[in-house]
């Protein structure tokens, strides 16, 4: 097995076989590791988590490219199962990437396995995947092209399900599926992660003691989002509702993908509106929080971060830039992988509130 330098810089050991089986794949991975470690003891396998990805064969390259862009959040062992219509045999290709360590440091090896299989293998896919995952590590499943039967088969053996509620056409259906999944597995939702900078900035904006009081006086919430990111918008509204103990009511469609409605609070209501906006990147475009006494704060996507616009009760307006680099979709997926090791107690309540907004 001779090492080859890949285009992106690391060196890779490779193995491939046609009409193979999981035992042979696992044995090949073990041998790749053993040989490389024997050649250089300073190389050690990454042992953080397994990522199992189920994709349509024709989109395998695109998904592999997305995974390439996660940067430092690469899974220790990635198992990409590509489903090809009409295929009856299992072919597999394994790559072990590493960089030669320098200055006495340990070099880290990452393993990527591609398994080409047919629809007939999906029933019982856990018997293909289970022997190939690195044992004693959390296993994350991502199935961006559906393949619900494979997901159901794999659910008992995984620890985390990676989903993107923004990719389903109907946000309420996407959130319903997420709610179903969290009954049996920990869910990391990329639509939720797209709201993270907005949640952090809203939390910070209302953190100073004089501002904290204003949280109880919020009268209106407006969320602006790319048309296909309605789930993110609902989740942000749901997050505020769940944290601030609002009782969400179903939002009504106003045409043009805009929604209006109210959330009930102890003695009054908060008006909630979701509006689609034109923007290149998926996710949110802006949020405006208006308080009853005339204070309002808007955060909008801008170059190099967010544009903050604050109006004080006396009508004075201030505008400034809140700094932060865009993570991009590669960064969001990488963050999804990283979040698989953490536990966010606020997603579940936010999701439940978002579903009530969604009706």
């Amino acid at each position, binding site marked *: 097995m001779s090492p080859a330098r890949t285009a992106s810089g690391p060196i890779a050991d490779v193995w491939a076989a046609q009409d193979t089986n999981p035992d042979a794949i696992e044995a090949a991975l073990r041998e790749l590791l053993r040989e490389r470690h024997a050649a250089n003891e300073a190389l*050690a*396998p*990454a*042992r*953080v*988590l397994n990522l199992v990805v189920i994709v349509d064969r024709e989109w395998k390259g695109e998904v592999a490219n997305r995974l390439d862009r996660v940067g*430092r*959040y*690469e899974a220790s062992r990635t198992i990409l199962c590509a489903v090809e219509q009409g295929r009856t045999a299992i072919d597999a290709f394994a790559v072990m990437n590493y960089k030669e360590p320098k*200055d*006495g*440091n*340990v070099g*880290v090896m990452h393993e990527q396995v591609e398994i080409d299989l047919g629809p007939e293998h999906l029933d019982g896919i856990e018997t293909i995947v289970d022997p190939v995952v690195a044992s004693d590590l959390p296993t994350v499943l991502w199935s961006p092209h559906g393949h619900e039967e494979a997901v159901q088969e794999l659910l008992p053996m995984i620890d985390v399900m990676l989903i993107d509620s923004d990719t389903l056409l109907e946000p309420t259906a996407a959130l319903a599926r997420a709610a179903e999944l969290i009954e049996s597995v920990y869910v990391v939702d990329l639509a939720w992660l797209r709201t*993270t*900078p907005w*949640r*952090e*900035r*809203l*939390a*910070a*904006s*209302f*953190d*100073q*003691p004089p501002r*904290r009081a204003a*949280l109880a006086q919020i009268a209106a919430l407006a969320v602006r989002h790319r048309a296909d990111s309605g789930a993110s918008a609902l989740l942000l509204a749901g997050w*505020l509702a769940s*944290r*601030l103990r609002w009782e969400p009511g179903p939002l009504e469609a106003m045409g043009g993908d805009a929604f209006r409605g109210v959330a009930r609070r102890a003695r009054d209501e908060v008006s909630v509106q979701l509006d689609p906006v034109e923007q290149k990147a998926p996710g949110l475009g802006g949020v405006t929080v208006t308080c009853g006494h005339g204070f309002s704060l808007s955060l909008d996507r801008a*170059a*190099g*971060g967010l544009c*903050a616009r*604050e109006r*004080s009760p006396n009508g*004075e307006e*201030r505008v*400034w*830039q*809140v*700094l*932060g*680099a*865009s993570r991009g979709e590669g960064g969001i997926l990488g963050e999804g*992988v*990283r979040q698989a*090791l*953490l536990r*966010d*107690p*606020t*997603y579940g309540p936010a999701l439940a509130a978002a579903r009530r907004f969604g009706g």
Partner: protein
Amino acid sequence: MSATVADQLAENPLVEGLERLPVHPTSLVIFGATGDLAHRKLLPALYNLAHEGALPERFELIGVSRREQAHQDFRDLARDSILRFSRTRPDPQVLDGLLADMRYVPGAFDDDDVYAELGRTLAEFDAQAGSQLDRVFYLSTAPQFFPLIAGKLGAAGLNRCETAPTRIVIEKPFGYDLASARALNAELLQVFDESQVFRIDHYLGKETVQNLMALRFANALFEPVWNRNYIDNVQITAAEDIGIEGRAGYYEGAGALRDLVQNHMMQLLALLTMEPPAAFEANRLRDEKLKVLEAIVPPSIGDVPSMAVRAQYGPGVSGGVRVPGYREEEGVAPDSRTETYAALRIHVSNWRWAGVPFYLRTGKRLSRKITEIALTLKPVPHLAFQSTGSVGVQANQIILTVQPDEGVSVSLGAKIPGPTMRIRPVNMEFRYGTSFLSESPEAYERLILDAMRGDATLFTRNDEIEALWGIIDPILAAWHLDTTSEIPQYPSGSAGPVQAEALLGDGRTWRRL
């Protein structure tokens, strides 16, 4: 959890579940803004925080330094620092945003006009924000300026703010000896409350140092053996393979004991030996560190020769290159008595650690760069295995490597494959690089953010500083008084002076570097 975090969770319902806790709008003033620390560390760290979206929603930066230059010159300098030293590739729009309103106040630190101009600039930022911003004064200057700057800030009324916290961050060294540390503390505390003073030792911001607490207090495996019943001895090593790198001016006045032992290594010792704090909160943690430091009985001057060794590197070969000895370095006196190597034997006189020797050693131009803590356990009471034909059973060791390859390893005795029951040590290893997805943030990023948030957990309190100097002071005094004995020389590129072996006794040896 610090009081600040607990308060935020209790009072701001939006904070729960967020990894990045809010930081209130802040004006940060860097004194010594054109210096090396600002250039290499502080400005790049601030950019990285901006890149990650971790800076406060409103963040203003003012540089103060002697050099006469315009705001734009300072911005250009900052841009250059960030482009050269940032750990993330700068995003041009974020960088432009960070630099856009950066200000510069030129002048000498004893010039009242500097503080008047600083006050005007801070007030201008407050007016722009419509409220008083928190203020952090970061003293990235030579230590002799700390009391002067603190005093001038006080005289200008900048040491307190009615509605927003004001903090001062100072960089080590915190004093030159116990007397000067006490004097510095007294001068700072005339102007600022202790709760406003953040003494930064970037070592404490390193992930591995913090992980020392996680290792001890989150694992039932280790804590039961973490005492005199199971630990035979502990060695803490901070070895460098480089020389003084042209810093003779600083190093001649400092030496290895002040440069590394009094602060970094003693902090490691305190974290290693302290009792578990009830909560990971600034004062509780620092109370525990103080207690254990107070349990180290300072040596008498007469005891020093038997518990401390100093030495200087001589000529030798380092990394295959011939290098001069310390006394031949430019700027070093040919008869210099400044130590480039120090080794100590310390005892912690409390219930947990009585009788366990702690060996500390640090040096320049040693054979390799490594910082580690090695705990050697006592041997098993009876051996039923043969040792013929093998190195035999050796005491277990727990090794915590701080750098260069952060991690933990445990040495175990294992059977050599074959028909006879022969044992040799093997290692069970954990390395950060293979076990986590995230890169460790730069220590300065963490510490700057903590200072802006008012979380002092990873900063050193005044009484800790004085306790640390109290242990080291007699050694410094003894070495200062001894003006006649030869300073041992060790060849550059070696493991240090042979005299250090005498500290160990009982058949112990220093771990191989």
